C-alpha cells in the first residue's frame, strides 16, 4: 500500500499538530542558543499550510509537497523557512507525478529534501543544525526501504534516527545558524531545528502508521 496525496495531507496535518503542541518548547530551545522564534515560525508556517490545504486539495503527492513548500517559504521566514521550504520542494520534484509513493520513493524524497537543505544552508553533519537530524534519518530510511519494509516503517525508522540525531546535537558547538555566534557557549543545548525535524518525522511516521 503506497503513500497517496491524502496520506501526505494527513501527515502534514499531523505535523502541524505536533508543531503547535511543541511550539513553546521550540521557542525555549531557540531562546537558549538563538533568538526565541523557531516555535513561532514553524507554528505560523504549518498553520498556513493546513489552511491552504483545506481550500486547494492537491491531487498528487508532489502537489501536496509543493503546496507545503511554497506556503512554508512564504510564511515561515527566518532560516528555517527557506530550508524546510526547499526540503519540501526538492521532495516534490523527487517524487515526480506518481499517484502513490512506495517505501523507496519515500526514502528518496527524504534524501532529496535533505540535499536541498544542504544545497541552501551548506551545513555538514556535526554543525549542530537540522542536518544532524535529517542525515541519520535519511540513512535509516534508505536502509529500511532496502530491507523491504513499507513506507510507514521507513518513516518510523527515519523518525527514530532523527530523534537520536537531535539529541546528539546537545554537546556540539554550533558552526552554522544563529547558534554559531555563541561559539563554545552553544554546547549543552539541543538544536531547535534538529528537534523540529525529529518531531515532524515522528508525526509523519505516526500518520503513516495509523493508516497502515
Amino acid at each position, binding site marked *: 500500500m503506497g503513500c497517496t496525496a491524502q496520506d501526505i495531507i494527513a501527515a502534514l496535518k499531523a505535523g502541524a499538530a505536533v508543531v503547535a503542541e511543541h511550539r513553546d518548547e521550540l521557542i525555549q530551545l531557540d531562546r537558549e542558543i538563538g533568538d526565541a522564534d523557531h516555535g513561532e515560525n514553524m507554528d505560523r508556517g504549518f498553520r498556513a499550510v493546513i489552511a491552504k490545504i483545506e481550500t486547494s486539495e492537491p491531487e498528487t503527492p508532489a502537489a501536496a509537497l509543493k503546496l507545503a513548500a511554497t506556503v512554508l517559504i512564504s510564511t515561515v*521566514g527566518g532560516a528555517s523557512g527557506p530550508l524546510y521550504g526547499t526540503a519540501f520542494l526538492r521532495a516534490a520534484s523527487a517524487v515526480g507525478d506518481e499517484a502513490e509513493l512506495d517505501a523507496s520513493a519515500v526514502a528518496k524524497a527524504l534524501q532529496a529534501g535533505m540535499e536541498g537543505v544542504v544545497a541552501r544552508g551548506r551545513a555538514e553533519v556535526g554543525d549542530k543544525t537540522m542536518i544532524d537530524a535529517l542525515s541519520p534519518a535519511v540513512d535509516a530510511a534508505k536502509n529500511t526501504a532496502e530491507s523491504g519494509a513499507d513506507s510507514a516503517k521507513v518513516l518510523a525508522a527515519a523518525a527514530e534516527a532523527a530523534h537520536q540525531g537531535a539529541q546528539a546535537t546537545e554537546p556540539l558547538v554550533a558552526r552554522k545558524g544563529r547558534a554559531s555566534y555563541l561559539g563554545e557557549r552553544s554546547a549543552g543545548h539541543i538544536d531547535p531545528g534538529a528537534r523540529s525535524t525529529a518531531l515532524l518525522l515522528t508525526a509523519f511516521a505516526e500518520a503513516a502508521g495509523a493508516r497502515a
Partner: protein
Amino acid sequence: MKKIINEPADVVAEALRGVAAAHPELLRVQTDPAVIVRADAPVTGKVAVVSGGGSGHEPLHGGFVGSGMLAAAVPGAVFTSPTPDAVQAAITATHGGAGALLVVKNYTGDVLNFETAAELAAMEDVDVRSVIVDDDVAVKDSTHTAGRRGVGGTLMVEKIVGAAAERGASLDECEALARKVVSQVRSMGMALTAPTVPHAGQPSFELAPDEMEIGIGIHGEPGRARVPMGTADEIVAQLLDPILEDLPFAEGDDVLLFTNSMGGTPQLELYLAHGVAERLLAERGITVRRRLVGPYVTSLEMQGMSLTLLKLDDELTELWDAPVHTAALHW
C-alpha cells in the same frame, strides 16, 4: 511580559499601521505581504535600494525609507527575516528600471530569503544585486561558520548607497559602493538587559545584576561572553579595542563614529559613552569627522549599546552628508 501591544501575533501588522499613519508624506505601507515603500516609488531611472529583516530593530529599516536612503524596507516577524515574496514585492513596488540593490544583514535566514527573492525578481527581468553586511567583530569569521553578523554598519551602507542611488548612480556603482562601505565598517555591541520577544513572552536571556553580555547581537541571542559589569570607560574600551584591531584602524584615519543604543539605554548614558569613545579615539590619533548618536539599530527594549566605526574618505563623507529625508534620519 509587559508590553504596549494587543495580540503578540499582530504586533508587526499593527505597528505598521502606526508607521503608515505617522509618515504619510514619506512612505506608504503595503500589506500581504508587508512592505514599507517610499511615497514616490517607483522612482524612474534610479536604483532601488531595498533592505529589510526581522522586526524589533526599529528604526532599522522602516525608519530609513525615503528620499536619499531606502526605496523600501521589508519587515519580517519580530527577529525573523522576511519571506522571499515580501522582498520580491518590495522590489516590484520600487524598481524604476535601473535595478535594485538588496542590502542584506548576514544572518542565515536573511541571506536565504533575500537570495530567493533575487532569483524570483530576476525571473521578472529586474536586475537585482545583493550585498551582505557583516560588520560585527564580536563574531569570529570563518568559512566554516555562518560568519559575522550584520549590525550597526547596515545603517551606514543604507545611507551612503541610498545617497548615491538618489544621485543616479548605476546599479554597478551602487553595488561597488556598498561593498566598499562593508569593507570599511566594523561594529561591536554589549547588553545590560535582555529583550523580550512578544511571542516568546519572557526575556531572551537572564543576566545577574553585576553582569553584562559583551559581543551581543541584536536578536536577543546571548553574546560572546558574560563578564562582570564595568564602568563606562571600561565598556567603551571593550567595544572599541576589537573594532580598531580588526580593520585595523590606524593613527591618522578619519572615521565616522556611530554610538548606538540597543533600545532601552537612556540618552544620557549614550552620550556619556559617546564622549568616552571620542576621547579614546583622539588619544589614538584617529579623527572623528562625522558622528551619529542614538537608538538606530535596536533590539526591542534591550539596554546596551554598540559602537560602529566607518573609515571615511571624501567620497563616503560627501555621500553621508548628502540630504536624507526619512523618519529616523533627516538632513
